């Protein structure tokens, strides 16, 4: 395959299998398991290919166990691919060369690297030494990032006494000390309250604009993805099933739009059946699902046939759509 110099990350036909052995319950099963072990391969990621340009923010979507984390860890070099190719900035991540490691960073929402009993500042200087930054460089960098993250005297308070939001921001500061150009973020807003989430999001967006860093993130919070990622990659059961911008994902998932109508007088439900699928109906409010091509006709008909106070057209919420999609299981 030919790599385009404008691509920072190239993932080509990447797969990861784990060899597992099944054990039947009970003593008999244990003995059998010991002498005659039947192993088989479970695939975590199957034949995934995509390319990412420098400076992009890409969100990885998928249910628990879909393979997002495995994919992310293969890109930062923590997991060896079974087959296929990963290239990040010209490096093969699994070799974990020093030059590569200085270009990337990983933040995991559920794991921390700061020393628990000490203020973040101590851990920051340890990290600075590990990355070979001078004390002066480290100081300048810490001040710059602390300002962007709105961290002040929290940095000199023991980590164990910080709130989850403050801790997460400090973790992000520690991860960005060495000016990485590729950021891998695995659930960076996990467990944070809405305000703290929003602050982390606005920081990431600003960091991306200021430094041109490439950001790859997974999140369970749809708000993170909609706010940050123009492009999403959906993983379902280890396979890539959508790669593109968020809006067209919504279109492809749901060819219909929601039409909400507020009526002057109550009407029976039968009267609306010919217009579209009734989602919700009570008294004077009706919510209809109408396919896009019939939308204008339906709306003008509604306006002539009924006495309408208010009318609203919207996309069904994206997280609901994706949620339904993953629950449905099989995707074509």
């Amino acid at each position, binding site marked *: 395959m030919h790599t385009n110099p404008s691509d920072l990350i190239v993932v080509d036909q990447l797969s990861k299998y784990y060899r597992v052995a099944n054990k039947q319950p009970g003593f008999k099963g244990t003995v059998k398991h010991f002498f005659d072990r039947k192993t088989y391969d479970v695939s975590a990621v199957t034949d995934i290919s995509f390319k990412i340009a420098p400076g992009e923010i890409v969100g990885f979507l998928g249910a628990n166990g879909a393979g997002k984390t495995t994919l992310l860890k293969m890109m930062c*070099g923590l997991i060896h691919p079974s087959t296929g190719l990963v290239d990040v900035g010209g490096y093969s991540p699994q070799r974990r060369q020093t030059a590569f490691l200085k270009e990337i960073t990983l933040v995991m929402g559920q794991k921390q690297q700061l020393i628990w009993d*000490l203020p973040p500042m101590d851990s920051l200087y340890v990290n600075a030494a590990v990355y*070979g930054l001078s004390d002066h460089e480290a100081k300048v960098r810490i001040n710059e990032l602390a300002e962007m993250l709105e961290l002040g005297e929290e940095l000199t308070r023991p980590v164990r006494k910080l709130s989850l939001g403050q801790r997460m921001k400090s973790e992000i500061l520690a991860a960005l000390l060495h000016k990485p150009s590729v950021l891998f973020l695995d659930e960076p807003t996990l467990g944070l309250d809405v305000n703290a989430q929003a602050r982390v999001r606005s920081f990431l967006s600003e960091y991306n604009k200021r430094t041109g860093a490439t950001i790859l993130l997974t999140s369970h919070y749809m708000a993170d993805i909609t706010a940050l990622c123009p492009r999403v990659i959906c993983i379902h059961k280890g396979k890539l099933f959508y790669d593109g911008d968020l809006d067209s994902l919504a279109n492809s998932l749901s060819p219909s739009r929601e039409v909400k109508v507020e009526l002057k007088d109550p009407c029976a439900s039968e009267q609306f059946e010919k217009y579209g699928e009734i989602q919700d109906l009570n008294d004077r409010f009706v919510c209809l699902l109408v396919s896009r091509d019939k939308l204008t006709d339906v709306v003008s008909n509604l306006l002539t046939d009924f006495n309408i106070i208010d009318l609203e057209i919207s996309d069904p919420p994206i997280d609901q759509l994706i949620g339904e999609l993953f629950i449905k299981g099989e995707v074509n």
Partner: protein
Amino acid sequence: MQRYFKTIRLFWSTAFASQLEYQLNFLIELLAMLGTLLGSIFILSLFFTGGRQLGDWTWESALVIQGVYTFLDGLTNAILRPNLTEIVNYVREGTLDYVLLKPIDSQFWLSVKKFSFAGLPEIILGLSIVFWAAIQSASTFSIYSLFVFIISLLIGFIILYSVWFLIAASSIWFVKTWNATEVLRALLAAGRYPISAYPVILRFIFTLVLPIAFLTTFPAEAILGELKFNILFFGLILSSLFFIFSRLFWKFALKHYTSASS
């Protein structure tokens, strides 16, 4: 290289700060350390009163072995135990991922991240005993024997470290702390007495299979000017092999970790 020295300095100063963070705990640790120290001194005092010989060793020279043992025990408490028993937690909590993505040798990080200052008094006591007893035994104490002593001490420490690290690294597969610490301390404790105090078969095992002789007996012989050069040479090769093997084993373990973890 300079980066590694600076990193160690920061590792240990943060370790010291962490230990001071809990004042009561630090006091208790100081007390525990005092207890260990008193225990060591008590055992030493038995040597002074007993007057009987261990193997072919006079009590002064046997005292040197005690000193070496105390020194190594202090070093164990200061560096080996705090760091190597922690490896299993890195694996279990998944924070090993952070270590692996640092542009620094992961074995270095895991081996020197912490330093327990509670081990220092034993280190000082051990060395004091060694020198006092060595001068007492009025043997040929010279710069040369001091040099050989330092080399053979290094050999002993590297062997102890490598064996311990091998066992700790296996937690990548087991993800459980099995009490390796106790096994190793028992091993080290066997080095409290001169190797010639043991039956022939054990002597053989302790020299070649479990090289306990290299931990205490040979350094003691070195400072007493009695160590044969070929043993020192053999020790250098053996400790290098142990160390190289620990590195290779770690690489192998990581290969397994990075192809199995998620």
